[in-house]
């Protein structure tokens, strides 16, 4: 059923973010590419955050707004001079508002090879109880 056709990857420009509020910390701000999908039980967000280490990643969930912030230190050391620069590095930021009610205690996050995987389990709704009507 699945026809996997390997095609060539196209380069994507890193998207610079424009936020309504200005950043107090200087530096570039980028919007990371994400995949979001949902099953019956959970919502999963996968974000490409190359260059971000676990200690530089911050995930914040409050009032149904999920914020992902990843800081990247410039990989070039002091003595290096640029010959070709096709991408820049900076902070990654993306915000989502969650429509489902999320079970905050069950959130799982893992960061591997620059890819963040966030599992947000949904709150299981109470099972409706049938009420028998006694024929009287």
């Amino acid at each position, binding site marked *: 059923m699945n026809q996997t056709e390997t095609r*060539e990857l196209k380069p994507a420009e890193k998207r610079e973010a424009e936020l309504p509020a200005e950043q107090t910390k200087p530096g570039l701000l980028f919007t990371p590419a994400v995949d979001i999908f949902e099953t019956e039980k959970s919502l999963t967000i996968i974000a*490409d955050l190359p260059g971000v*280490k676990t200690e530089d990643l911050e995930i914040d969930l409050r009032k149904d707004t999920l914020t992902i912030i990843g800081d990247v230190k410039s*990989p*070039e050391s002091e003595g290096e001079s640029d010959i070709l620069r096709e991408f820049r590095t900076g902070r990654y930021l993306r915000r989502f508002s969650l429509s489902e009610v999320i079970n905050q205690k069950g959130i799982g996050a893992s960061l591997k090879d620059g890819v963040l995987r966030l599992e947000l389990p949904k709150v299981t709704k109470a099972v409706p109880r049938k009420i028998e009507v006694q024929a009287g």
Partner: protein
Amino acid sequence: MPGTRFSNYPDWGVWGPFRGLERLRRAMGSVAAGSPGYSTAGVFPLTNVSEDQDNYYVRAELPGMTADQIDITATVDKVSISGERAISEEGEGVVYHRRERDSGTFSRMIGLPGSVDPDKVEASFGNGMLTIKLPKSEASKPKQITVN
């Protein structure tokens, strides 16, 4: 309408009915050229090349890949990076709301401004960032010239 066709695909050239669209398409393709400061070769992955006294450095962002999925070959003045990026299948019953991450093959050759010693090239891959360190050959290193 009577007319003669010399080939199956009429070639209107620059005067065809789609000339406005073609101009727009070309302008869209060079959006990157309008960005201040840097341009892209239009090939994945986007790479940065830098140098210091002794080495050239080539860096590329390849999130989600592992070191063994990337093929790197180096010659005296070129380095090529190729591989395939796979996005894991998530299974049945999954509803996607966003699908922005791309998967597929890539292959790119980068020419270096000077010559390097291919036997001493080192590559490291961490947090989705590939760094290739290419030590310059003696001929490429800058030489101090003393004035008598």
